[in-house]
């Protein structure tokens, strides 16, 4: 058994009456259990390439091999029942209920009724929709985000090993999109599906992809690599242009808070400590503020030196409330945003229970950017591409 779940070999599509093929000899391997993102400018052939994998568009030539089996000529309906398919327009069946929508493929596969009901409820649960509330609704009675969740549930219904997704979160407002992306990534950690994901948004590609294929016209691969490599070692000018000038900021979306060394020496106190003790503790540290924790180690207030000039009787009423929390799995970009929002200019790292872990400040983030840049420079230096006087790559 090969480690590649999907192999595309010289896949070509020539639409009738067109001189140039829409997709020209696309060859690619998608490793088992990974998300591969196709990203590229409009019209470069992403959708056509994707649709050839489940043969919604029949390839003109080339081969599709799924799990070691050449499926280029098998019965397409048979093939498609084993491949989940999610499109931007979702395409829920408007005339039947949510549960009937989700049950589509299991019914085609002839599952018995009880199994279908159980599976439908389970899936609605998985995508975050209460089955009791939503099972009997119709698609028009759902919001766009909820519909897309149903779309994902429907694609997962018969537990296909492969999922094809064409701009699945494209038509959703940014906040809901971020939430759906995060939920989907969490789901994928358990499901370990092999996924081909199309987007024209490089940020989404970086976020979602284990690997990214940057495509140019006719689905020619400009670079096929991990998001880190794409950002730090763009293979050519096309990739560089496509990734754009915000590459450093984008890198912040790749690194997580847990990957950096946050500060752990911030002085802390308890709600029942006396103000005098806390004042002394703050004075003994080289910090300008002290963090007060409650009896379950959750941060509640920041105290600064001036706050002790007129101490209230209770510590709980002194200083400012603690704000700007981040979890270890948040991206550095999220952390930076929290810092800018919170007036303290720092973010407090907490775990899932809200227990205090440490502090992130802008310096921590700058240090990590520096480290990434050094790694990049290391690469260019190795490739003798760096001008040692400026330390800048390229030129």
């Amino acid at each position: 058994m090969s480690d590649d779940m999907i192999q595309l070999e010289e896949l070509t599509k020539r639409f009738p009456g067109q001189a140039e093929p829409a997709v020209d000899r696309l060859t690619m391997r998608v490793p088992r259990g990974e998300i591969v993102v196709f990203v590229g400018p409009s019209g470069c052939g992403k959708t056509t390439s994707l649709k050839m994998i489940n043969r919604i568009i029949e390839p003109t030539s080339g081969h599709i091999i799924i799990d070691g089996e050449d499926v280029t000529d098998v019965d397409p309906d048979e093939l498609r029942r084993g491949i989940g398919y999610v499109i931007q327009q979702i395409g829920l069946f408007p005339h039947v209920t949510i549960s009937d929508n989700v049950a589509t493929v299991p019914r085609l596969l002839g599952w018995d009724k009880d199994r279908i009901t159980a599976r439908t409820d389970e899936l609605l649960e998985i995508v975050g929709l209460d089955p009791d509330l939503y099972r009997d609704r119709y698609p028009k009675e759902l919001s766009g985000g909820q519909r897309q969740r149903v779309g994902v549930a429907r694609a997962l219904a018969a537990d296909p090993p492969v999922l094809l997704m064409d701009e699945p979160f494209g038509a959703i407002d940014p906040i809901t999109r971020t939430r759906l992306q995060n939920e989907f990534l969490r789901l994928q950690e358990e499901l370990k599906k092999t996924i081909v994901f199309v987007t024209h948004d490089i940020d989404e590609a970086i976020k979602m992809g284990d690997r990214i294929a940057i495509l140019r016209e006719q689905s020619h691969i400009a670079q096929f690599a991990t998001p880190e490599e794409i950002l730090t070692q763009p293979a050519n000018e096309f990739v560089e242009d496509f990734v754009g000038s915000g590459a450093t900021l984008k890198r912040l979306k790749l690194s997580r808070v847990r990957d950096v060394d946050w500060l752990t020496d911030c002085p802390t106190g308890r709600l029942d400590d006396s103000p005098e003790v806390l004042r002394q503790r703050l004075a003994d540290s080289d910090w300008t503020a002290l963090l007060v924790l409650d009896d379950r180690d959750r941060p509640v207030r920041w105290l600064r030196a001036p706050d002790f000039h007129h101490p209230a009787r209770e510590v709980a009423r002194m200083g400012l409330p603690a704000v700007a929390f981040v979890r270890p799995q948040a991206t550095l970009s999220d952390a930076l945003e929290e810092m800018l929002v919170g007036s303290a200019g720092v973010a407090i790292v907490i775990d899932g229970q809200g227990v205090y872990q440490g502090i992130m400040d802008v310096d921590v983030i700058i240090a990590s950017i520096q480290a990434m840049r050094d790694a990049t420079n290391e690469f260019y230096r190795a490739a003798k591409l760096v001008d040692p006087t400026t330390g800048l790559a390229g030129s």
Partner: protein
Amino acid sequence: MSFFTDYLADPSRQARLLEMAVEHLVLVGASVGVAVLLGLALGITAHRVDWLAPAILNTASIFLTIPSLALFALLIPLVGIGATPAWVALVMYSLLPIVRNTVSGLNSVDQAVVESAKGMGMGGTTRLLRIELPNAWPVVLAGVRVATLLVVGIAAIAALVGGPGLGQEIYQNGIRRIGSPGALNALLGGTVMIVLLALLLDLLYLAIGRLTIPRGIRE
């Protein structure tokens, strides 16, 4: 002679009118029934086979442009007189609204819906029966309704070729005896009955719509 006190009050005339109304209904029902089967088949074909669509739609349009009087008469040499020419002519007239609405109903089904059905491995026939037709149904039904109301009126002409229905009252007791006492009442009686029949059928279609249009796509 008054329409209400004399014409409608006569029990034997009431019975005769009712009898003719039933004949009329049977004639319309039978023609539309056949036209639905034929029209759906032609509409689905036109939808699936692109190059056949213009031929099918144009033929059905031409049927509708033939003046009804002429069409009934033209059919006599082919199928004789009586119910048959009436029935054939009404099928021809009902065809266009049904075919056209079947085609536009199927075309109006969201392409994303069809594609996602295809992408899940639903074969052509299953897709047609389970996805495309149910979603096209409100439009198809509207076509059937238009066809029905159209032929309720046209069916009155059937009496000219010896056919059944309320046309007999209008033609034999009305038009042919115009000037004689009672002719006007017969004319009026047949017409009123046809209008009532049309209203009744319209209500029937409202009920059919309620019962057969899936809740998810109802207005």
